[in-house]
């Protein structure tokens, strides 16, 4: 088990009342599998992903990475060395080129990486489908699908085992959506990574190894 959430609670305080987004949520994930967390808008799936990726902290409960509480690892350190995050709106640095965006986490991580990081970045982009002449363009000159590929390459750049993606295909057309899903499946099944994707799409959920449904703050298996 690479990642485990135990009794996570997250709420908004509304006067004296608490509005729970997640209530006693527990879930676990293994390496080499492609997971999806399905839910309507406002169901709390992005919040769950934020807690799993240490972008936010729960009010109670814990997240264990390789059996170690990520709070003990340190949220910053956990994000830096253990996970790759992909956002719906890509969150790339617009003034930098594609390859520069991939190089950023490589300069931040403490993981051991090959010395020639630029070649590694170009190769990663090429693997994801961004050829060299596009890799040298500022990212805001690339299409939505290309930008998401750059975001995936950036998530993989630090050689992590855990990839977390929040609605990664939300801004893409169907053809591009399938291409991205295929990349995730390949990362899980061929490279042994654990890929967790938050989505509201049934089609994507059906292609995952295991899907969860989040409804009113409660997580359940989705068949």
């Amino acid at each position, binding site marked *: 088990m690479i990642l485990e959430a135990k009794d996570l609670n997250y709420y908004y305080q509304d006067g004296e009342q608490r509005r729970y987004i997640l209530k006693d949520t527990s879930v676990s994930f293994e390496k080499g599998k492609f997971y999806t967390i399905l839910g309507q808008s406002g169901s709390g799936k992005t919040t769950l992903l*934020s807690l799993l*990726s240490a*972008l*936010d*902290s729960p009010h109670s409960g814990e997240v264990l990475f390789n059996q170690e509480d990520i709070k003990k690892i340190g949220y*910053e*350190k*956990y*994000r*830096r*060395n253990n996970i790759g*995050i992909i*956002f719906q709106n890509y*969150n*790339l*640095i617009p*003034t*930098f080129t594609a390859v*520069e965006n991939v*190089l*950023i*986490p*490589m*300069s*931040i*991580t403490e993981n051991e990486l090959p010395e020639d990081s630029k070649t590694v970045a170009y190769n990663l982009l090429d693997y994801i489908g961004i050829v060299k002449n596009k890799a040298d363009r500022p990212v805001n000159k690339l299409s939505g699908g290309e930008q998401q590929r750059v975001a995936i390459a*950036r998530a993989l750049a630090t050689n992590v085992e855990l990839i977390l993606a929040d609605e990664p295909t939300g801004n893409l057309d169907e053809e591009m959506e399938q291409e991205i899903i295929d990349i995730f499946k390949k990362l899980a099944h061929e490279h042994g990574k654990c890929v967790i994707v938050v989505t509201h799409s049934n089609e994507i959920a059906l292609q995952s190894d295991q899907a969860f449904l989040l409804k009113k703050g409660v997580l359940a298996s989705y068949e």
Partner: protein
Amino acid sequence: MNFIKRGFLGITRKKGKSLILLAVILILGSLISGAISIQQATSNVEKSVKERLGAAATLELDWEEYDKLSEEEMMNVELENIGVDLIKQIGGLSYVKYYDYSVSTMLGSESLEAYRGEMEEDFIHEGPSMDFTLKGINYAPVLDFEEQKGKLVDGRVFTQEEVDNGTSVAVISKKLAEKNNLNVGDTFTFVNVVYTYDEETGEEDIAASRDVVLEVIGLFESQFIKEDAETASDGGMMDWMDMDYQNTVYVPNEIVLNENKYQFEEYMKTDEEYAEMMEGEEEASFEYYTPMFVLNSPEDSEAFEEEVLPLLPDYYTVVSATDQYDSIAGPMESMSKLSKYVLIAAVIATVLITGLVVLLFLRDRKRELGIYLSLGESRGRVVGQILIEVMVVAFIGITLSLFSGNFIASQVSDTMMKADNNTSNEDVYYYSELQINLTTDDVMDSYEVSLNSSYILVFYGIGLLTILISTVIPLVYIVRLNPKKILM
């Protein structure tokens, strides 16, 4: 692609924003730089003028206080003399480097011709006149020489023994000696004449006279006057002052006291009314000493004054050479005040405007900061990256404004001083016991706006600190949030 490289790339990739920030810093920096330039220049002038004025102080009647009295009060007021004991007590204060107290008198001579300088033809010589000032001294090395008012060029100064015994020796000016073919070791004679005055006829008669024979032991040259005579615009005034000093003869106090006593006693013999009035008066009534204290530094003047004032008899005050600065540095003071207000306003404006510009600059970058944090970058490095971007631009802006501000300050102060000087009254010349002959023009001439290391350091310090504060405050406000809140 570490945070330092990202910082520099941020500057070059966002040229428009960097240029806007540069322009804002340049404009506001020029204001700050200009104001600091003027402040520094005026404070340098104050320092150098006060140094020129010297660290001397004397005790004088406080005419301002005295004039406040009604006529009746003036009649009843008994003004005490400053006694030797009090002078010695003040002379013992820690601020005093050395001090002297002297009595003076005017004497004439039949054998000695007074030095007239350029005005030789304006004088008609008729018998003995009172052309010579006998300046008594108690401080053997002669305080005027220690203070570079005069310089001994031949012979020697007094010994303490000569001063204590009132030996008939004198130090005279070289020009007076040359005019009368006197050398060190020669003797010359003054005449102490007591006149009677007939009120009805208006005629003067000699009631008594005696010779005062003195031996020349040293010759001095005037230093103080010579320096300024070349540059002074009002040559006439300087010539009078020069002439007066060249005809000054330094002797031990005792000599002057004896001559004053002789005059007093002989005069009383001729005027019964006066003799009756003065009956019972102490000898001290003609022992009117002028004390002179040389302080360790001009900066000690205020503390010295504070300590001495309570010791003085009523209606006396301390007059320091540096007091004159306030009277002659009018345009300088008004400019210094103005620049102080501009400096305060400019610093406040810089903090607000730069803070606002940086805040807008950061608002655009907020998402980017969130992305770095979501990738695990430390808050310190995120702050560091933005600081590099802002501070590099700020450094360039401040460096440019150092020169532009200095140039503006020089232009503005030139215009202001010309305008202020044109509207002010004629130059005032000061001539007192302290022998200060500085004018407003002298003060203005010593004003110079220039770049010096302390100014550069102060400016970089204030400038960079201002930008740093205006950047760090909004930056810390953003990065203290968790990445989810920033990215939402």
